[in-house]
């Protein structure tokens, strides 16, 4: 069955450092991979989408890579800030017409001052 794996343990990073989160998937061939941020008790907020033919995408302090051979995406936050503390979800989409996407359980990130 389709499976998305994200670091189950919380990631604790010193402010100013780069945080790197991992998303691995199996039994799936997504055309698109998305990253969301979720704060406690709130709905996820869309951050970035990367296509299978894109190796890397950037948005301000965020960088996402997508390796379809390794079946892995890396999500980087540079110059991390305490306000970046949240749970980050990886989501897979099969193609542009497939509106249903599947979500990982997320990685909790804590940035300490």
């Amino acid at each position: 069955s389709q499976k998305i794996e994200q670091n189950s343990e919380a990631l604790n990073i010193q402010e100013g450092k780069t945080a790197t989160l991992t998303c691995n998937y199996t039994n799936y061939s997504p055309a698109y991979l998305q990253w969301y941020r979720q704060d406690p008790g709130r709905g996820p907020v869309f951050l970035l989408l990367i296509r299978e033919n894109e190796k890397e995408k950037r948005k301000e302090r965020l960088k996402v890579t997508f390796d379809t051979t390794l079946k892995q995406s890396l999500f980087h936050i540079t110059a991390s800030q305490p306000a970046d503390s949240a749970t980050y979800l990886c989501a897979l989409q099969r193609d542009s017409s497939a509106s249903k996407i599947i979500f990982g359980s997320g990685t909790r990130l804590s940035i300490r001052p």
Partner: protein
Amino acid sequence: EADIYQTPRYLVIGTGKKITLECSQTMGHDKMYWYQQDPGMELHLIHYSYGVNSTEKGDLSSESTVSRIRTEHFPLTLESARPSHTSQYLCASSDSGQRANYGYTFGSGTRLTVV
């Protein structure tokens, strides 16, 4: 800046009661979704709609029902609430065509507790 609204935010209700969770969006999105999420767990799709009068069950079996009579409104109903329905319910919407690649927009959720 949320353009998708869920009410109520929190609900505590007794077993056997009928409840309706409201979800409305003002973005004109044709696709809408209901997800269920327990603390620290992944989101599970329970219902989705690709347009007015179109509804489908999701990947997670659910005793709830939905309707889509208007583009902007996608309510979820539980005819008889049970403690096993206690969870966070998240509504989302998305666009189609060239704007489909801007991800989902989620509401803030309804935290349901059935006692």
